């Protein structure tokens, strides 16, 4: 037990050291460029590189005179965007998984459909956003649901590709073994191919976790949603020259949300694959 505490303490210490080092780098760079008066690659001042303690302090400053502090509105925005991202992540993950299972059933289907799935990712999300938002809006679907669908659009792709790979990764003798038991196709799928692809699926979900957050943030702008983190970014962008720390603080929160999503998937992976060789140490 005490070994575990030492282990945790060491990790906390390491993280703290990394944060301190990054902090030092930022402030050191700012100080050096400002004292030397260097302007390459860009002029350094409190607008381009605000002090990090100012960014932290910004969380407690009101965004409007007499209004609530920034952290208050950012937490609301995080909750809102987190909801969109989570819905998009779950939707995209489910669609990606089901698509992969369907495609794995026929080489012909896979060869026919997969190029279009790849092509779908070359279309920028900003290009399809208005269609989704306006199209669904005309059906009376709420804006945040449209954004969730945009997030799903970014999420499903890694899941399809990795799950397909996992489903095909199975040892051919394991398939022969199932055939020797006269196992039906769906049994081979659910008792062999799907369990064998679980590590691949988690790799995909780790990529998708952060992609869904990014998708939700980006999707808010074309959907004209103000209450999310995307709305906050657009808003603080306009006042950047006056209050640069507000945008930086928002960026920190966006990053934190992505990290939380990633860690949640990591925790789920540890839980599900706790019996697998690479997770025992």
């Amino acid at each position: 037990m005490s070994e575990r505490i030492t282990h945790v303490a060491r990790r906390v210490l390491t993280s703290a050291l990394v944060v301190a080092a990054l902090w030092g780098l930022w402030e050191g760079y700012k100080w050096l460029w400002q004292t030397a008066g260097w302007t390459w690659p860009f002029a350094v001042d409190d607008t381009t590189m605000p002090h990090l303690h100012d960014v932290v302090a910004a969380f407690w400053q009101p965004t409007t005179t007499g209004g609530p502090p920034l952290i208050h509105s950012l937490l609301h925005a995080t909750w809102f965007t987190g909801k969109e991202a989570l819905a998009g992540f779950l939707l995209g993950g489910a669609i990606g998984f089901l698509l992969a299972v369907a495609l794995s059933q026929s080489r012909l289907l896979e060869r026919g459909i997969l190029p279009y799935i790849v092509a779908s990712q070359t279309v920028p999300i900003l290009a399809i956003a208005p269609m989704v938002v306006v199209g669904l809006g005309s059906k009376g679907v709420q804006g945040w649901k449209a954004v969730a669908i945009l997030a799903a659009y970014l999420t499903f792709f890694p899941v399809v590709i990795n799950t397909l790979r996992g489903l095909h990764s199975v040892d051919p003798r394991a398939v022969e073994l199932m055939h020797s038991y006269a196992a039906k196709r769906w049994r081979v799928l659910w008792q062999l191919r799907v369990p064998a692809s679980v590590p691949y699926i988690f790799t995909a979900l780790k990529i998708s976790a952060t992609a869904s957050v990014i998708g939700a943030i980006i999707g808010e702008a074309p959907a004209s949603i103000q209450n999310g983190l995307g709305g906050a970014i657009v808003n603080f962008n306009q006042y950047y020259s006056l209050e640069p720390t507000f945008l930086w603080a928002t960026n920190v929160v966006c990053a934190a949300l992505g990290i939380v999503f990633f860690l949640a998937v990591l925790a789920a992976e540890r839980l599900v694959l706790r019996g697998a060789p690479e997770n025992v140490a």
Partner: protein
Amino acid sequence: MTGPANVVEIAGVGKSFRGGVTALEGIDVDIRAGEFVSLIGPSGCGKSTLLRIIGDLIQPSSGSVIVNGKSAHRARLDHDYGIVFQDSVLYDWRTVARNVALPLEMLGWDRARRRARVAEMLELVELTGFESSRPWQLSGGMQQRVSIARALSFDPALLLMDEPFGALDEMTRERLNMELLRIWEKAGSTVVFVTHSIPEAVFLSTRVVVMSARPGRVAGIVDVDLKQPRTADTREDPRFFELITAVRETLSAGHVAEPTRAAAVEERF
């Protein structure tokens, strides 16, 4: 014909692959109930292909295979086969007990019956106490014993083994040979065993089917009349060495590029 009935009847089986490679040609072998038959031959003689044809995992191009008086296909659907490969092919995400229970789940056995049978099988392969271990926590020899327990768990009429001990070290291999014979006697199953080790084939088998390559044919069948049960002393028996020579000579005779008989005898020592 006297004695037990044939479990396997292979008649005129041939197999050509696309591109015109003939893997097998004119194979005729009958295997009686309770026999332990080894298929031996140089690589490329189609011994593994023949095993897969018996197990209905691939289809012959010509000829027929009858298992327990029905087609190989029917026999597979009736769960007449237990298969052991060179690698144990255990599922990493299942415990040892659940790996052994895999075929029983396919057969729709209920939980209590599965549990009882798994305990029985693990006792048979001397792995009691490893029920909840994961496959990768076991040594290669232990993994292969789990794979044998899995293959025998549903009492298949025929155990098909494709170089099951080929990947193991010599000492583990000899110990597992003894264990396999003990299991075979106890379970009373019929075994078809593919190997490229002549001593292993002779030590284990009641008959050795010697095959030649390109195309794969039966070069000869050697009856192994060593007394049962086989023990460590069997390997010292002069008859054991005579039979090894007999198999080796049949193998040589089957070769196109013909090594002399003298060379074959010399190789013995």
